[in-house]
C-alpha cells in the first residue's frame, strides 16, 4: 500500500528526515516511536502533504501512485487520513458542516453522489457512539472550546466517518487521560480491517497496550534505527531511548515486512 524509499525532508535548510524507508501493507498496524525531535511528527505531516515541509529526496508510492505529486486534498480523497497532534480550532464552522463538506468532497472525487444533511446525520450517529460523543457536538464549532480529550476523540470520529484506507495517528495519545485513551484506542481498533492500514506515531508505549501494532519502528535523528515486532515497544519502555541512540549504528536500515 505504502512504500517510502530513502525519504529526505525538512523545513528551510534544516533537514529533519534523513533517509527513511518503510513499507506498509494493507491490514497492518505500524508504530513509529522515537524521542522528541526524532522526526516522527514530520514523517506524519509529510505523508499528509503539509506544505510547510519540503521533500528534498527519496520517493513515496501509495497504491502504485507517486504520493509526493499529490496535493493534500487529493491524498485525502484517495484515502489518507492524518489525525492531528494539535487539532485546529475553526470558530464559525460547525463540526457537522465541516465534516459533511469533507465527506462530500471525497465522494465527489470518487464520482459518487453527495449526501444531504439528513442522510449525513443518520450516517454519523453510530460513529459518534464509537467515540462516546454526544450529537450536540455536531452543532458546535470545529474543536472550539473542546478539551484536549474531546479534540482527540473528534479526530477519531472524523476518521470513522471518512473511513480512510491509510490512517496516520500523530501523537493521538498525548494529553489523554486513561479513559479517553481507551475510548480513542477502541475507536481505532474497530476501524481496523484487512483492507486498511494504520501508522501510529507515538512517544510512549502506553497507547500500544491498546492499539497492538504488528511492527514497531524507532526513529532517531531522522532515521529508522531499529525495527521489530510489538515486543520492541516494551523493550524501549524498559530501557529508554538512550539505549538505541547510543547504539544507533543501525543507521538507515530499512524496515522489515
Amino acid at each position, binding site marked *: 500500500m505504502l512504500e517510502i524509499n530513502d525519504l529526505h525532508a525538512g523545513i528551510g535548510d534544516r533537514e529533519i528526515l534523513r533517509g527513511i524507508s518503510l513499507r506498509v501493507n494493507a491490514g497492518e498496524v505500524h508504530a513509529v516511536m522515537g524521542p522528541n525531535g526524532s522526526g516522527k511528527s514530520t514523517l506524519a505531516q509529510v505523508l499528509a502533504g503539509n506544505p510547510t515541509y519540503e521533500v528534498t529526496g527519496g520517493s513515496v508510492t501509495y497504491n502504485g501512485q507517486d504520493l509526493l505529486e499529490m496535493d493534500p486534498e487529493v491524498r485525502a480523497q484517495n484515502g489518507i487520513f492524518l489525525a492531528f497532534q494539535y487539532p485546529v480550532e475553526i470558530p464559525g*464552522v460547525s463540526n457537522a458542516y465541516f465534516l459533511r463538506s469533507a465527506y462530500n*468532497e471525497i465522494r465527489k472525487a470518487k464520482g459518487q453522489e453527495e449526501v444531504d444533511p439528513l442522510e449525513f446525520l443518520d450516517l454519523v450517529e453510530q460513529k459518534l457512539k464509537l467515540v462516546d460523543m454526544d450529537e450536540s457536538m455536531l452543532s458546535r464549532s470545529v474543536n472550539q472550546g473542546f478539551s484536549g480529550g474531546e479534540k482527540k476523540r473528534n479526530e477519531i470520529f472524523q476518521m470513522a466517518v471518512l473511513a480512510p484506507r491509510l490512517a496516520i495517528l500523530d501523537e493521538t495519545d498525548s494529553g489523554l487521560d486513561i479513559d479517553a485513551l481507551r475510548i480513542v484506542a477502541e475507536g481505532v481498533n474497530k476501524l481496523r480491517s484487512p483492507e486498511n492500514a494504520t501508522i501510529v506515531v507515538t512517544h510512549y508505549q502506553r497507547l500500544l497496550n491498546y492499539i497492538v501494532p504488528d511492527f514497531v519502528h524507532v526513529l532517531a535523528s531522522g532515521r529508522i534505527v531499529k525495527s521489530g515486532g510489538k515486543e520492541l515497544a516494551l523493550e524501549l519502555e524498559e530501557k529508554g531511548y538512550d539505549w538505541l541512540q547510543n547504539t544507533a549504528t543501525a543507521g538507515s536500515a530499512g524496515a522489515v515486512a
Partner: protein
Amino acid sequence: MSDIAATIPLEVEAARPRSERGVAVRAPGAIEIYRQDFDRQPAAPRWLQSLREHGFARFEALGFPTTKNEDWHFTSVAPISEQPFTLASLTDATAATGSERREAPRRKADAFGQLGVRPADVEGFGFGESGWHTLVFVNGAYSPELSSADGEVVAGSLAHAIEAGNPAVERYLGRIATFDQHAFTALNTAFVEDGAFIEILPEAVVELPIHLVFVSEGDTVSHPRNLIVAGRHSRATVVETYVSLRDGTYFTNAVTEVVVGEGAHLDHYKIQRESELAFHVGTVQAKQEANSQFHSFSFAVGGSLARTNIYTALDGDAATCTLNGLYLTDGSQHIDNQTSIEHIAPNCPSHEVYKGVLDGRSHGVFNGKVYVHPEAQKTDGKQSNNNLLLSPQARIDTKPQLEIFADDVKCTHGATVGRLDDVAMFYLNSRGIGPERARTLLTYAFAADVLESIELAAVRESLEKAVLSRFSA
C-alpha cells in the same frame, strides 16, 4: 429635555469660516450646487425651516471634511465633494409632475411609477419573513404604495408627521444627531424632508420588526432622515436597508436619530447594500436613558465609497449598548466604519465587535471611539476589531480610540489584522477539502462569528447566506 437641547448648536452665526481655522478651502462648485437646491426646497413649518437653515449654515462653515480632519484621516470624500449631485426630490418630482412637485402625496405616487420599483423588488430586499412593518423610500421619498405598516405601531413617513404637526418630531429632530462638527449630518439637516418616523409608545412591545427600505438609483443625492423614539420600557426592532435596483452613481446621505427611553430596549440593524458605484454616508446617532438597551448591528458591503457612523451616548445610569458590525470590501471599494460610545452616566456596560474581510484593492477603515466622562464610574467597555485580508493589495486602517476621564472603569480594546491561517488551511485540505473551498469556509467562518450575535434569526440567516455566497468562488 433641557440636556438634549443644550447640544444643539444655535450659535451658528458665530462659527468662524473654515479658512480661518487653517483648513484648506475647497473649490466652491459643489457647495454652490447644494446652495441652489437648498434655496429651491419647498417651504416647511417655521421650526423646521430654522433647523434646515442652521444645518446649511453649519455645512457651509465646515465644508466637506478633508483628511486633515482626524475623523476622516483615512477617507477622502473628494469623489463625493467633486461630483455635482442634484437633489433627488427635485429632479424626480420635476420629471414626474412638472411644476406640481410641492404636492407631496402626488409626487410620491409618481416616484413609484417613474423609478419602476415594484412590490416584488421590495420583497426581494426583505428577509423572507412576511408580516413585518415595511416602509419603503424611493430616492429618499416615502412610497405608500410599496409600504405596509399596520396599526400596531406608529411608523410612517417623516414628511407626514411633520405635516401633521406631531409634537415628538419637533421635540427631538436635530437634537440627537449633533451637527456642529459633522458636515454630512449638517448637510442632511439642511435637507430634512422625508424619511421614517417611528414612535414606540411607553410600555409597548412591538413583536414584529419594522423594516425601512431605502431604494436608490440614478445620479442624484437624497438625504433620508429618520427619527426613532422608543418610549420608556418599550421594546422594538428596526432594520434599515439601503439598496439599489440598478447600478447608479447616486449619493445617499442618511441620518437616523434614536431616542431610547428609560428601560427601553431597541435593536437596530443597518444593512448597507448600495450599488457598487454609489456613495453612501449613513449616521445612526442614539441617546440612551437609564437602564435602556441599544443593540446595533451594521452590515456594510456596498458602495464605491461608503461611510457608516454609529454613535451612542449612554446618558442614564446602567444603560447598555452593543455595537457590532461586519464589513466586506472588494475591488476598489472604500468602506469606512466609525463608532462612538460616549459614557456619560455611571454603571454602563458597552460591548463592541467589528469584523472586516477585505479583498481586491479595497480599503477598509475602522475607528472606534470610547469616551468615558469623569462621572461615568464603573464603566465596563470592551471593544475589538478584527480584520482578514484576502489579497496583498487590500488595506485596512484600524484605530481603537479610548479616552477615559474616570478612575474606576474597566475598558479593553484590541485590533487584529491577519491573513488566512495556513495551519487551518492544511487541516481542511487534509480532510479532502481543496484550497478554493477551504478558503471559502475559513473566510465565511471568520465573518459568521460576528453574525452569531444577531438576535433576529431572519436577518442573521439572510446575512449568513449573503456572506457564504460572496465567498463561494
